[in-house]
């Protein structure tokens, strides 16, 4: 079974708006990553946050991690049509086995 669960399953917004996706997981982790997948393509790594970090930024992306609640959020600011994709959170523990959630499908309308 998959450890990470993203919420919402699907999100539709207008270009220029912010998009927030959430991820919850069940067991302790070493790190959490977010990936993007365009339709029918491989995944692209966006950002990695370690268990001792609470927030990271990368360009228009902001990720937070709350290990006490076993949850993370990905914020995409000033969204663009090109941000339309599926977004997955993935968690890793000892040994570096990575478990992916089911993803949030984001649609940005121009």
């Amino acid at each position, binding site marked *: 079974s998959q450890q990470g669960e993203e919420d919402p399953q699907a999100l539709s917004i207008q270009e220029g708006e912010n998009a927030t996706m959430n991820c919850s997981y069940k067991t302790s982790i070493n790190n959490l990553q977010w990936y993007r997948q365009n339709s029918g393509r491989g995944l692209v790594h966006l950002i990695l946050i370690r268990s001792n970090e609470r927030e990271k930024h990368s360009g228009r992306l902001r990720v937070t991690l709350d290990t006490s609640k076993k949850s993370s959020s990905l914020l995409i600011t000033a969204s663009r049509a090109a941000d339309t994709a599926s977004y997955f959170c*993935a968690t890793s523990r000892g040994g*570096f086995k990575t478990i992916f959630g089911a993803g949030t499908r984001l649609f940005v309308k121009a």
Partner: protein
Amino acid sequence: EAEVAQSPRYKITEKSQAVAFWCDPISGHATLYWYRQILGQGPELLVQFQDESVVDDSQLPKDRFSAERLKGVDSTLKIQPAELGDSAMYLCASSSSTWGTGPFYEQYFGPGTRLTVT
């Protein structure tokens, strides 16, 4: 920019036939992963290699799936015989992480092989 290569990109086969997928990771990446992704779901790890050794194949259906990475570089995933339920995207990824030690590095994914079993 270095990329993970996979072939073929698309494969259509009849059930009970054998299929094989190939992956060439980014040069120098010791860790190689094979994932299966069913439409609408996230990737599921099938097998993870550290150099030529399998470090996790707990989710690999070993009665019909096999994977090898003989020289610790490229890898082959085989299904024999294929079943209708094997229709999915098969993704290969590589990472410079070393199993169980040191810092964790992100995974780089190939474009995937879309398998359709008829």
